[in-house]
């Protein structure tokens, strides 16, 4: 049998690749998030004009996507490898293609297709333009030039590259199910996570307590607001993230109506926008001052 690149080595290769491109190797956030974008290393750091290059793995929790471990390609929890480069380098597309090569994907033996995708994170007041990247038809990455975050127009445009690690690994290892991915030479992804999937699917869909979650949402929202009033960006934003996760849990439980859903998304977005505003206004030296200096 041919030697496969294990899941953990895929992660290592990508980290090494981006480290060589000058990225700071960061770590996941300590709270449940739906995407690596929520991590302050992305959401907060893209707001200012200072250069920032970072690479980290994030656990993405999407309660609605749970399938009790029965769907080969869909789970309520998976890994993303998140790369932020600010400002976006002009040869970024080439860099990205090289990162695929670092995983043994030869461009002359595969099709890499950039499929138009306008990206939007409504709970973060963020949007950008870019693509889904398909490797032989499988979406393995989202590639986005951020235009706005926390409702703020970004002055320096960052590029966000988000690899779906399990997706790309199934392509690299040539397996049909993410549960069959070789994590290392002894264990599969399924060995590590199947039970977790079964239990969380049951919890998310059947057992979570909507009343408690609704209360938590309200309380987290209040605490976020209180922290912002004290001028505390990170602690306030931390509670905004918690709101977002609680919202996802409620959504999965199927207890929020269409219009209530829009309302709650709006409330989380408002918190994210406050965090962004507060961060910008608390930067040393206002934009005007800086401009004078430059002149």
């Amino acid at each position, binding site marked *: 049998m041919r030697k496969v690149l294990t899941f953990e080595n895929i992660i290592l290769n990508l980290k090494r690749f981006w480290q060589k491109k000058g990225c700071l190797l960061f770590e996941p956030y300590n709270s449940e998030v739906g995407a690596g974008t929520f991590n302050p290393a992305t959401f907060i750091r893209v707001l200012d004009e200072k250069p920032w290059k970072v690479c980290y793995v994030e656990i993405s929790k999407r309660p609605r996507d749970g399938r009790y471990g029965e769907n080969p390609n869909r789970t309520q929890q998976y890994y993303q490898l998140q790369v932020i480069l600010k400002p976006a380098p002009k040869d970024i*597309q080439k860099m990205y293609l090289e990162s695929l090569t670092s995983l043994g994907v030869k461009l002359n033996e595969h099709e*890499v*297709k*950039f*499929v138009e995708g306008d990206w939007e994170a409504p709970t973060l007041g963020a949007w*950008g333009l870019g693509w889904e990247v398909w490797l032989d038809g*499988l979406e393995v990455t989202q590639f986005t030039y951020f235009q706005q975050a926390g409702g703020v127009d970004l002055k320096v*445009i960052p590029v966000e590259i988000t690899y779906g690690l399990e997706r790309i690994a199934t392509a690299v290892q040539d397996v049909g199910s993410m549960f069959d991915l070789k994590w290392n030479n002894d264990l599969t992804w399924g060995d590590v996570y199947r039970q977790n999937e079964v239990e969380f699917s049951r919890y998310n869909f059947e057992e979570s307590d909507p009343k408690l979650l609704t209360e938590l949402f309200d309380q987290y929202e209040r605490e976020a607001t209180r922290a912002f009033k004290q001028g505390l960006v990170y602690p306030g934003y931390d509670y905004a993230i918690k709101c977002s996760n609680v919202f996802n849990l409620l959504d999965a439980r199927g207890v929020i109506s269409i219009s209530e859903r829009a309302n709650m998304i709006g409330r989380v977005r408002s918190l994210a926008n406050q965090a962004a505003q507060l961060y910008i206004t608390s930067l040393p030296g206002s934009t005007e001052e800086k401009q004078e200096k430059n002149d």
Partner: protein
Amino acid sequence: MIDFLIEIGHEEFPPSFLRRTADDLTYRLEEVLKRNRIFYRSVRTIYTSRRFGVIVLGLTRKQKPQVIEIQGPPKKIAFDEKNKPTEKLQGFMKTHDLKRTEIVVRKTKKGEYVCGRKEVAGGLTEDVLYEEIPRIIQSLEFPKTMRWNASGTRFPRPVRWIVALLDRRPIRFKYAGITADRYSMPNFHFSYKPIRLEKPREYMNFLRHGGVVVDPNERRKLILKRIKQAIGKVPGKPLYTDAMIDELNCMTEYPEAVTGEFDQKYLDLPEEVIVTVLKTQGDLIWLKPTNKFVCVFSAKKKALQNVKKGYTRVVEAKLYDAHFYYQNDLAQGLEKMNEQTKGMMWLKGLGSLYDKAFRMSKFVSVFPDGDQAALKKAALYCKADLLSQMVREKDFTSLQGIMGGHYAAVSLKDEKIAAAIKEHYLPNYVGDALPRTQEGAALSVADKLDNVIGAFLSGNRPSGSYDPLAVRRNGYGVVQVMAENGIHVSLFTMIERLLGLYGKKLEDGVMKDFFSERMTRYLADAGSRYDEIKAVLATWQGDIADARHRCQALAKFRDKTEFNKLVIGQKRVRNILKGSKETGAVQTGLLKSPAERKLYRTGTRALTQLEVLLKQKKYGEVLELLLSMREVIDTFFDDVMVMCDDAALRKNRLALVRYINDIFIQYADFSEIVIEGEKS
């Protein structure tokens, strides 16, 4: 003669407006060349997913020389008595660097003036292009743009290189932080090494070696050829549209094709599901009715096996999901899904989805045609599929209604109900198909009208660009389906009935205003002129299909001179009636002159005929009839003084005019028609 190449290299462009953008660039470039008197033999537009541009062959090296005339002072102050140039003229000549031989006299409306007339040599084409090309690029318009670098330039996707080559010389203008040069880029599946171009004529060939077929027409043919080759002897009919091939053309640089196949068991799924899966997975082409599909891709031929395996896997996974949802939905049944709509809020303050469906099931008795029992039941179940697993999945939300139809066929075992549910979202967009069954059309109108009224009642009225619930589109849909499916129910009756079912009220006129706008838009789209629409709507009673027929008949008559005279007559009538409030009946005893009596007789006869013709909706004949009254009316106005001194006579004549007017406005208010040359 020289050649010119402009190529704007970018990251993958949105396919929906790539072609338009490339055509626009060509158009603007040609305009600039013409305006600057630069001649050329031919132009060719090129585009792929990663570049667009123009090749111009056989350009002149210089602009054509031009004679210009500059107006100077009036002749009488330009020359003295001895015909010598005055100081004024000398000043003019100095300012514009003119010789005495270049001074001519021109006659103008304001008298004779001197002019400086000189020949200006043409500038270099190169200089013109250097100036103009960045401006042309800047003037391109896009539906959506982004920023990506410090230049702050807005473009649909980042521009990464620009080739601007005039014969052997690059025109090094700057745009978006890039300096144009002679280097293009190949297809990245082939290489990442820039392609150096010595001259434009090398371009197509060199790029082809780099894995790029730049000519869109050639590439489109190649796509179709590749599809044919891939199919080979596989049976089945390739299911694709021109739009699909166009989109593929905008997403490729070097098309290849391969077939894939999925498990036979998925052929149990409704066709629409299979088509949706294949479409969203990259415009894959189904070889109906087999379990095979064709995938057009843009990479090296060597990738064929990986592409086949990859797409097959993705398609299988999607079909697996779809199959899973479908089985679960069938096991659950439409009845249970409908039960769940009770827990799903529709619009804030207006109850659940079930409440909406229930209201619609009461409402549909307003429609006289079709199978009333089936229609009522279809209304009651038409929102159930929104709670199906299939439609709740984002890849399949577009199958709302369609899935409901399938589930209804199984659960309710009634084809009429199934068809009505299936069709009731139609038309989804402008140009979409209309419902084909009577029940489907009725349900479509009921749903859309309910959406409109619901939005108005729940504080979601459209205003300006704000229309989150697409109320305008729904309103337009009501009008279109009523008109084209020939549903002759008064809109106002429907609105009243529906508001009654809501148990709520809206301010007077608000619905009428809203629908007048939708009607105007619709009738204009259907080819009517605005004054015709205005004339018909002025006396409209609420039957939408009828209004359309009246407009159509009106259009056929309006070119006749007779018709114009009729309209002029009606305008006179309107003016005469403007100040009068008389409403009494005509007293035949007071009809003094023959012209009056004749008009009254003609009117009475016409009225009887009119009622029959209107009932039969023979609008051509109605117009013939009205037209036939024209002469009698004209004679009346020529012979009879309406506003005479005798109060009783005046009153009776006004009553007669109104009597005639009332006949006309049973069809339309003809005085709204604009006569050519008339100031409105």
